[in-house]
């Protein structure tokens, strides 16, 4: 029987509020993995730590702001993007990242998401998509697959979900990609890359929520979902992809496309300036 080793410190302690541990996330949850990739990307970014700002909305993913040892802002449900817009415009030198959930960003905050993408404002969004509202106990949301079960859809979800990369790409973002919590190196690299590309960046991270989504949809364990990712993910590596094929239903034996979907340089939002 292997013994657990207790270590005094961890290399990421300098960037994580270790005094806040243990975190609130369930065993098998993917949010911590996504946060770890963000933390590692910050350390590798070469950007001074004090210039990294994280803003979250509300939800299990929204708790990320409370665990990052950065200037960190846990705003209200849905409003992380406009809050971050204010931070960024007030101090354009800052690298402002929004870290939040699919429900927060695409349901209650959906209007801000498309408008921030349209404006192409220079903020980085990491969206943890666990196909449900985890925090409130597994209700269906804007990313829940059609007919999947949730605590507010005991007979199956009667609604069609958003295909988030397609939505954000069509809205005008400079950068859109998707990874899963299995793809930790790629995710970290991609977050790093988003720091260097001006404009609105949206990285969707598919993530297990065994408690909220998994248990009612026959994926009872976080590892089961990781295994699905391993079997089904298909990497798009030439950037050429029809955004329509990106919709996901974990219950079906279809490919889950991951990788970089949109990478372009539309003009970014800048405050109007006149010669003074």
């Amino acid at each position, binding site marked *: 029987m292997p013994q657990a080793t207790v270590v005094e410190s961890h290399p990421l302690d300098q960037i994580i509020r270790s005094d806040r541990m243990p975190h609130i996330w369930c065993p098998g949850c993917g949010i911590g993995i996504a946060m770890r990739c963000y933390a590692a990307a910050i350390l590798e970014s070469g950007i001074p730590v004090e210039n990294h700002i994280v803003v979250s909305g509300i939800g299990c993913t929204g708790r990320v702001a409370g665990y990052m040892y950065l200037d960190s802002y*846990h705003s209200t449900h849905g409003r992380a993007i406009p809050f971050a817009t204010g931070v960024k415009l007030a101090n354009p030198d800052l690298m402002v990242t929004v870290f939040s959930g699919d429900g927060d960003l695409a349901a209650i905050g959906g209007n801000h998401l498309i408008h921030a993408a349209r404006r192409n404002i220079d903020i980085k969004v990491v969206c943890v998509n666990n196909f449900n509202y985890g925090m409130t106990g597994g209700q269906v949301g804007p990313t829940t697959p059609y007919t999947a079960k949730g605590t507010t859809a005991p007979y199956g979800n009667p609604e069609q979900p958003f295909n988030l990369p397609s939505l954000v790409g069509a809205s005008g973002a400079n950068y859109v990609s998707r990874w899963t919590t299995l793809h930790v190196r790629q995710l970290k690299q991609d977050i790093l890359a988003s720091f260097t590309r001006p404009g609105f960046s949206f990285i969707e991270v598919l993530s297990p929520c065994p408690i909220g989504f998994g248990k009612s949809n026959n994926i009872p364990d976080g590892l089961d979902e990781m295994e699905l990712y391993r079997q089904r993910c298909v990497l798009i590596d030439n950037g050429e992809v029809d955004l329509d094929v990106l919709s996901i239903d974990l219950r079906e034996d279809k490919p889950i496309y991951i990788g970089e979907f949109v990478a372009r340089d539309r003009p970014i939002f800048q405050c109007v300036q006149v010669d003074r």
Partner: protein
Amino acid sequence: MSAPRVHTGKFFMHGDYACAEGALAAGCDFFAGYPITPSTEIAEHLSYRMPQIGGTFIQMEDELASIAAIIGASAAGARSMTATSGPGLSLMMENLGLAVMLETPCVIIDIQRGSPSTGLPTMAGQSDVMQAQWGSHGDYEIVAYAPSSPQEIFDLTVLAFNVADRFRTPVILLGDEVIGHMMERVVIPNEDEIMHWERKRPKSPPGNNGNYKAFLPDDDDLVPPMAHAGEGYRVHFTGLTHDEQGYPAMDADTHHKLVTRLIDKIRSNADQIIRTEEYFLDDAEIVVISYGCTARSARRAVREAREQGIKVGMLRLISIWPFPEQMIKALGEQANAFIVAEMNLGQIRREVERFVSQPVIGVHHAGGAMIPPEPILKEIVNCQLKTGEKPWPKVMILRSD
């Protein structure tokens, strides 16, 4: 194109423009808003003026976004503001509570129109008064000012920014369509004569050894110094109940302590926040209380009643919240009757009733047209006739004229 931040001079100026110029004079460098009558001219004027002074103007997708953006900007050190009217103020309510909880200074201009709902977009109202204080969920204390002229909208916008920064709190300016759309003389002073209260800032530099806590007041004014995003203090701000460091703390004691401090922070500094004007109050036996555009009619009514020899005066509420209860109680020692004139159906009248035992007579209108001096004068005369009769019949008149 070059223009000064402070447009010193004497002008015949539109109220909404005076508000925008007041904001600039006060050092506002960030505006986010969404168009809505009768406040839109503020956004329009700032879209022209902000770029001239190197500030930020952004038109957001809605009012939810507008207030979130100004709170974020404030967290990064900006003096920030938005402008709206009733429907937009309703949308801002959740994040008004966030600004209270995060103690992020910001200014919300509400140019009131006839309400509820879409109401009378182009016509005046004063019926957001209670919403300003009670609209967001939970207990909190708000600061709100009500200008009665374009000059005062300039002056009070300047004051609003200073009070917001000094006490780390959102401040609402409760204008109304009459004042917002009125043209009148506005005198803008020299830049060095503009009031300037600083935001309290951390005294120790950032670093692990510094013991700065973003939500720990450093003296008995109950206001914690504020560090800004990007300064290296690595603060955490959350709308969850939090301890002095800003960390979530899910327990009843911390919650009670935090919420009472946020309220006491405003109440115990009320003498620095409250503004009123007294008009013929010295020997007044009848006291008229009014504010905003209605106070203009009330002033005329009081003057005419004085000409008839009636001992009447006016207390004009320049600040509405926190409510000047001590002052109203003191007037209760001298007056026989109170008249509250306001363009709503009794929001401040009920507040006055809480602090005096004398009859409080309301002159009310639901909004859409200014209350003229005549019905106020009529009530003053009625009160005068009844003086001496005991017990006083407690009457309340709802007027549609």
